[in-house]
């Protein structure tokens, strides 16, 4: 008895620390459920059966259940992305574009509801890395999203252009602001003929190039690159399924038709 109690008591702080240092919320919640269960065991050994029953039914079962319901993401496929014309854009009150079509099909394929949130560019990677969203999109270029997230294989070849205007001093200050309303800021800057030094993917570049780019230096960055989607780390299964789904689209020719609908 004493040994069992001692073991459970030592286990409590260990599990608590494990729970509160988890990055993924679901893991933390399940660890706390386990914590409550062990706590109920401690109460039982402390001759408090009433408390043990209440703790097990409320602390371990009900609380965990409510948490899991609140954060449960099965049932919804949450996509975050920045607005990019053609790929992911507002169409009235709805969201449309090539990426939206692909992901809507993928969500149907999984039997989930699609929820798209348009956020600022820096928030896309952050939200995915934190596990707040299942998939990040919006003209992300493969290899450019840093550590902490998974990438699918690229679904569409693209290119990156560097637009800059030499001799301007406010470039560094602007780079922070540019992160927020990325495309709008760039087009505003170009319209006003202000200083800039940004990389644009093909879709955004096409959009910007309709404006007057004289006075800017435009370089196509060397190398091949693709548009991609990102996922939270630890979601390898989802990554595999999405990659496989994209392959399927490409083989059936459906992808080319969709590109034709959205990007011409």
């Amino acid at each position, binding site marked *: 008895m004493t040994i069992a109690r001692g073991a459970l008591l030592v286990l409590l*702080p260990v599990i608590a620390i494990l729970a509160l240092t988890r990055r993924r919320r679901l893991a933390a919640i399940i660890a706390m459920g386990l914590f409550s269960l062990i706590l109920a065991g401690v109460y039982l050994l*402390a*001759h*408090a059966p009433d*408390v043990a029953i209440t703790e097990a039914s409320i602390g371990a079962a009900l609380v965990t259940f409510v948490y899991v319901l609140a954060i449960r993401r099965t049932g919804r496929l949450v996509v975050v992305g920045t607005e990019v014309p053609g790929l992911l854009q507002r169409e009235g009150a709805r969201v449309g574009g090539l990426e939206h079509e692909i992901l809507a099909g993928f969500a149907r394929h999984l039997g989930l509801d699609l929820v798209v949130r348009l956020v600022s560019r820096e928030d896309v990677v952050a939200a995915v890395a934190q596990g707040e969203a299942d998939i990040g999109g919006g003209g992300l270029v493969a290899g450019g999203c840093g550590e902490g997230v998974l990438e699918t294989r690229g679904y569409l070849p693209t290119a990156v252009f560097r637009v800059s205007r030499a001799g301007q001093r406010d470039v560094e200050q602007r780079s922070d602001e540019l992160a927020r309303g990325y495309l709008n800021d760039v087009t505003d800057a170009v319209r006003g003929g202000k200083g800039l030094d940004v990389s644009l993917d093909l879709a955004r570049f096409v959009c910007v190039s309709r404006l007057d780019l004289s006075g800017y230096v435009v370089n196509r960055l060397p190398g091949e690159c693709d548009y991609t989607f990102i996922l939270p780390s630890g979601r390898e299964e989802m990554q595999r399924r999405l990659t496989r789904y994209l392959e399927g689209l490409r083989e059936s020719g459906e992808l080319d038709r969709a590109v034709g609908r959205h990007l011409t």
Partner: protein
Amino acid sequence: MGVLNGVTVAIILFGIGLLGLILRRDLVIKLLALGLINSSTILCLVSLNARPDGAPPLLQGNGLGAMVDPLPHALVLSAIVINFAILALALVFVMLLVERYHTTDSRRIEEEVAREEGE
């Protein structure tokens, strides 16, 4: 039993919960930490009188002398339910905040609220 008793562990758990509450920015984890703090007070109350040789406070023909004190147990039942009530309401409010700001990061929400205030 020495150092390894329920009260000591409860106070250590309280500390862990406090650290979680301060250092994690995710509101859901913050709520988990708050739950941990509340559970630790309950553990503290129950462990006060938990004698290894005691008996549960049930009249089943066994001696009354060996029974552990039932009063803290009765108090704790109320405390557990109250903690659940707090948790449920807090989660609902976190849901409302997420719906509005699309994040569970406490600092970000703080900034957003301050910005709205300024407008």
